[in-house]
């Protein structure tokens, strides 16, 4: 796999990963009983 392909994929996957993590965090913090 070339470096350019890794860069291209990583740039988008950073956003995907951050989105999934934020999704879980919002659910955990604002839907559960404890902060």
């Amino acid at each position: 796999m070339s470096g350019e392909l890794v860069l291209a994929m990583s740039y988008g996957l950073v956003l995907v990963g951050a989105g999934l993590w934020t999704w879980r965090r919002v659910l955990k913090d604002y839907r559960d009983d404890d902060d």
Partner: protein
Amino acid sequence: MNSFQAGIVISLGCYLAIGWYAGKRVKHLEDFFVAGRNAPTVLILGTLVASFMSTNAFMGEAGMSYQGHAPLVIIMTCFNCLGYIVGAVFFGRYLRRSRALTVPDFFRSRFNSRRIQVFAGVSIVAGLSAYLLAVTWGMALIITEVTGFSEVIAILMVWASYTLFTLYSGSRGVILTDTVMFLLFSSIVVVTAFFIVQAAGGWSSVIGSLATYADKPGIIAWHGRVGPDVYWKTPMEALVWASILGVAWGIVVAVSPWQTSRYLMARSEHVVIRSACGALIAMLLLYLVTNFAAATVNLINPDISPPESTMIWVSMNLLPTVLGAVLICGVLAAGLSSASTFLSLVGFSVSHDILGSAEKSGEANAEANPEESADSGASEDKLSQLQGGRLRNARAAMLCVGVTVIVLALLLPRNIYWLTHFAGPLFASSWGVVAFMSIWSRRITESGAFWGMAVGFAVNVGMNALSLVGLVKWPVMADPILVGVVCSYIAVAIVSRRGTVTATESDYQQGLHLMPSAERDPETVRQTLLWPKVMVVMGALIAASMTLFYALPYQEAVAGVLPTIAENES
């Protein structure tokens, strides 16, 4: 008056008009300092991005990309933009929950310490005044180049425009103008990128030409230009440099006052999270478009000097006149939005954090929450007088700061690069560890927090000063930002171990983790969850688009050239 002069005058007039409109609604101290704590997502998102992206993004970083290092800027952006999410989730929403008027005010409440508030206030004055100077000079340079106005006139124009609306409208005006400016520079950058690519022969031609660009080999390879004639000798060296600086600036994004103070104005914690998600998306897209466009300019004119003026050249020589004037206004808007934020924060810190006494801080909070004060028996008239007095003081402090900045801007020798390099990261070193630990650590003491801030500040300033006078050239692994952060943590750990956390500090820290019931509204939570969904979809689209329109065509172009080179050599 030519188109550029007219565009600049009209845009400055518009910002003043918006500031005047917003200023009419400033009635209380909370309106002036934190925009009434009622700002919606779009305004917080706009001010987050506009405050971060100054003229440096469209001049310094675009120039770096023009020189062949766009991929490094892209890698850095990958890391530093994550600071939005980390900062909002682990610090920003708790900061908002504290209902402080300023970030130093939060530190005072958290550690029950006036000296921490003053120290944090002084570091804002030192760091952001320096940044304000750099941005003022940067904007004046642009105006001088495109209009022919003298430098003094340009400095005065720039200064007057951001000072007047900030002085009158405070944070209410700043977040409104920031958002207008964000929309302006974002849209014109996309339009400009389209013109640049068309002028260079269309996208597929651009990728093919840049992939095999002989003058700056590797200009769009994953590591950018490397070799003996540039700063980075090998691809790995370039990657390490971009990653470390990306992480360092990520801490800046997460804790710096010109970013986190925006969260104090948010209508709810959900607005904090949504705006951070939006800022991450916007920054990733804006940096991608801006820096690839700047690299592409090489195919139209490879001899722009200095490289920092790439976008100015584009506006004056490539775009239709009207669009060129709008691009200049957009670049100026990026600078003005940062400048207004810096000026307001410095003014708030002088009037509230440094000159205001401990009692006055409490008094200000009482003013900020008139209903609570009414409960405690204070009359409305007295509150109104207090509010008026504190507002006048805040404006007077801001005016004094503004006058000091204009005097310094006219007298000091220009050193835009160093001031930007020094002032931005200062807060990561000084505040980074203490900010996160103030929320998450039960063991950090008041002394630990104070010395952690002081050591981080001193190490960062000391290392930068040694580098500036040429005594030391720090390796990238020993970047002053990161060394400052590590030293700050060590200081917090050592000093805190020798002291005890008071009941007041402990109670306050625990109180920060009590979730307000209003934040659990299911409909509000559902709306917030839309933002991470958009992030996932956008991320997948960006990855697919970059693969299809950058990585694969790049590989094809390079593969096509390699056999030709081999044939020529044989």
